[in-house]
């Protein structure tokens, strides 16, 4: 069958990166910078080409997927790795929304970044990000995935610190990179653990084949501790990238970057790569019930904690950041009960509505000339109606209002949680509670931003304007997605399970192997309960915030009091670890180094003393020197005589 080669997909953004970086560097000399039209056009063109080629390849894809090996990467005998791409139904879905949403957000950014000095540089980073993300989801082995994995982390670092003249942005970027690095170590160590068994296992297909093969059952049982270790380590990698407990502190700080970046990287794509990895390694994880329990508990805790933290935030982007963390917690919960297809489905729907929310928030911020504190907003419904509509649709999607995308995916997650086993009802209750809280904090966001009266200054009110078309079009498309994307797998409508069928070749076998409790509850019950949760949450939010006087902010937008304790508890824990290292570094410099230096000076001082002593022996008179040298001559003669046997 004729088809486009797979490497075409990552190639386009790579070309885009190189071209845009060249333009960015070349235009530094000129005062004005490169033409925004050309740069913007190029910036959108390459992701679009990648999207088109994904669609073309995806259309003709055979059921079992396409695998392409480009060449050897590392081959040192006992360890082999190659560049290879694997395009199957899982990577197809991921690629479709990565490139699709990537294109939309790039288009949005051409409006958002208008007039910025680093216009071309920004799009070079965005293209580099898309390249890395595509490599991440398209690769056929863990090692190449890791290239994309660190690559997206790197782009995230570059984009968070995009406005690098402000050191606090750089600090946030550094934090993101370093926390991610800690997670990445989990990934590396996981790979090494697997490679200890055999480096072939780093290939996804080989791994699945090995684990699924009935002939290997005994061997796998022997190796189970190693696999459990690898699984746990990979999960640590996922917690770093997907901002789960305990490595989640970087994501709220990452909001220092431009808003489109938050939408693309820190909501829709990069942070979901952890979920993707779990789904990729589903064959491994279903063998490890212990690890899966850890995954589900971490997901639950994260979802609940972040939802509560979202209640305390005043910064509009921070609310969305905590909401992202919380939703990622949902996805991990789903993955933890072996509902990998559902978790990917939630990734998919979440990408739409969270991107729409972020872009909407970006439009609001844009309209308010950079104001991010919700307490200074209000009444934006009338001033920016299109943005408000987009936000409202996305809001309904995220709280799980019936019919919207989030409803279907969240509903499925809750259902799978309930039937997962003895712990099921407890997990279900907690998740439902979290859904209520989600509705409350999201309702608070909507109420504070769009309803009531404008609470900012008179002066700034005049400048409020609706965003340009280049920003609105992507937002509208995304809001449409957040309305309708859910119908790809609407659990209540018979036959509307396209998504499940698509993913079945990749994760179906693994999920079947995990073995569910055969509890049967009518799906309508879950739907009704979910709807009630959303409505209750909305009502509570309206009651609490709609008519209350909002105290005008003093100083920063960071939460205070209990909110601060709750929000920053993991920052505190990180702080303890970091200060432990700081103490270690202090010891290294001030104790160990001092000690070594002291030894050095001690030896050096001894040498100097000896030297002084010797130079004190030196006499000025030539004659005396010669006389003294006689002693040496005598000694020499003595030695010769003694050794010659004459004395």
């Amino acid at each position, binding site marked *: 069958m004729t088809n486009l080669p797979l490497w075409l997909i990552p190639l386009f953004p790579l070309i885009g990166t190189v071209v845009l970086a060249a333009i960015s560097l070349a235009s530094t000399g000129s005062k004005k910078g490169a033409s925004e039209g050309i740069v913007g056009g190029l910036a959108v063109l390459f992701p679009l080409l990648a999207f088109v080629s994904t669609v073309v390849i995806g259309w003709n894809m055979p059921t079992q997927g396409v695998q392409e090996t480009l060449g050897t990467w590392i081959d040192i005998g006992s360890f082999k790795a190659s560049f290879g791409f694997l395009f199957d139904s899982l990577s197809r879905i991921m690629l479709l929304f990565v490139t699709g949403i990537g294109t939309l957000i790039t288009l949005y950014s051409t409006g958002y970044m208008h007039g910025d000095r680093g216009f071309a540089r920004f799009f070079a980073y965005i293209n580099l990000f898309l390249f890395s993300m595509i490599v991440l989801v398209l690769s056929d082995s863990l090692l190449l995935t890791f290239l994309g994995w660190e690559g997206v982390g790197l782009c995230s670092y570059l984009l968070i610190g995009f406005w690098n003249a402000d050191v606090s942005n750089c600090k946030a970027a550094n934090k993101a990179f370093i926390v991610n690095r800690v997670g990445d170590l989990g990934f590396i160590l996981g790979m090494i653990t697997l490679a200890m068994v055999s480096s072939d296992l780093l290939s996804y297909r080989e791994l699945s084949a090995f684990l699924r093969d009935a002939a290997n059952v005994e061997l796998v049982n022997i190796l189970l501790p190693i696999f459990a270790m690898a699984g746990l380590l990979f999960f640590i990698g996922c917690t770093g990238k997907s901002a789960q407990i305990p490595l989640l502190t970087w994501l709220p700080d990452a909001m220092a970057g431009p808003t489109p970046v938050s939408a693309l990287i820190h909501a829709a794509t990069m942070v979901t790569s952890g979920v993707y990895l779990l789904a990729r390694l589903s064959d491994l994880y279903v063998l490890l019930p212990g690890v899966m329990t850890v995954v589900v508990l971490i997901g639950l805790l994260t979802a609940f904690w972040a939802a509560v933290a979202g209640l305390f935030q005043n910064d509009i982007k921070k609310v969305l950041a905590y909401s992202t963390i919380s939703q990622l917690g949902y996805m991990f919960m789903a993955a933890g009960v072996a509902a990998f297809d559902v978790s990917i489905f939630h990734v998919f729907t979440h990408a739409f509505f969270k991107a729409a929310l972020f872009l909407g928030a970006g439009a609001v911020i844009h309209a308010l000339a950079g104001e991010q504190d919700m307490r200074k907003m209000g009444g934006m419904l009338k001033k920016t109606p299109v943005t408000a509509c987009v936000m409202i649709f996305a809001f309904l999607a995220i709280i799980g209002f019936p019919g919207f995308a989030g409803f279907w995916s969240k509903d499925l997650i809750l259902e799978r949680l309930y039937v997962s086993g003895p712990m099921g009802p407890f997990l279900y209750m907690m998740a439902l509670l979290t859904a209520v809280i989600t509705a409350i904090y999201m309702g608070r966001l909507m109420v504070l931003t769009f309803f009531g009266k404008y609470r900012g200054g008179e002066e700034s009110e005049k400048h409020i304007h609706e965003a340009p078309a280049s920003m609105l079009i992507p937002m509208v498309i995304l809001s449409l997605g957040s309305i309708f994307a859910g119908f790809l797998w609407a659990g209540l409508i018979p036959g509307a399970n396209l998504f499940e069928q698509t993913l079945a070749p990749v994760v179906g076998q693994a999920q079947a192997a995990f073995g569910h409790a055969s509890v049967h509850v009518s799906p309508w019950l879950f739907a009704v309960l979910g709807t009630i949760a959303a409505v209750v949450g909305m009502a509570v939010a309206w009651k609490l915030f709609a008519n209350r006087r909002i105290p005008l902010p003093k100083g920063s937008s960071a939460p205070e009091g209990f909110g601060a304790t709750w929000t920053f508890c993991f920052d505190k824990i990180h702080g303890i670890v970091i200060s432990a290292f700081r103490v270690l570094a202090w010891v290294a410099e001030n104790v160990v180094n001092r000690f070594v230096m002291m030894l050095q000076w001690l030896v050096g001082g001894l040498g100097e003393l000896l030297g002084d002593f010797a130079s*004190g022996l030196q006499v*000025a008179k030539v004659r005396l020197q010669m006389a003294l040298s006689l002693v040496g001559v005598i000694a020499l003669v003595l030695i010769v005589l003694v050794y010659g046997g004459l004395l």
Partner: protein
Amino acid sequence: MELQAVYVQILALILFVIGLLTAISRRNVFFVLMGVELALNAVNLSLIGFSKTLPGDLSVAGQIVPLFTIAVAAAEACVGLAMVILIFRNQESVDSDNYSGMKG
């Protein structure tokens, strides 16, 4: 009683010792030079004395080398005396202790 080879060596040794004593313990620079010459002579004598204890062709080297020693001594005396004159012009002294400019 015949002339023994060791007598020659003992004579050479005595001369050498006296030369060394003169060279080191006398302060007058001329005595220093003369002491060096004396020591050189003693060495020449020793060389010839030893060469006479060797048979045939082997004895040749010991008799040729003193010739070179003498030539080198001549060169040494030549340069040494020139230096003495030069220093004497600057320092008005033939006391070798006054020449010392070494820094310790």
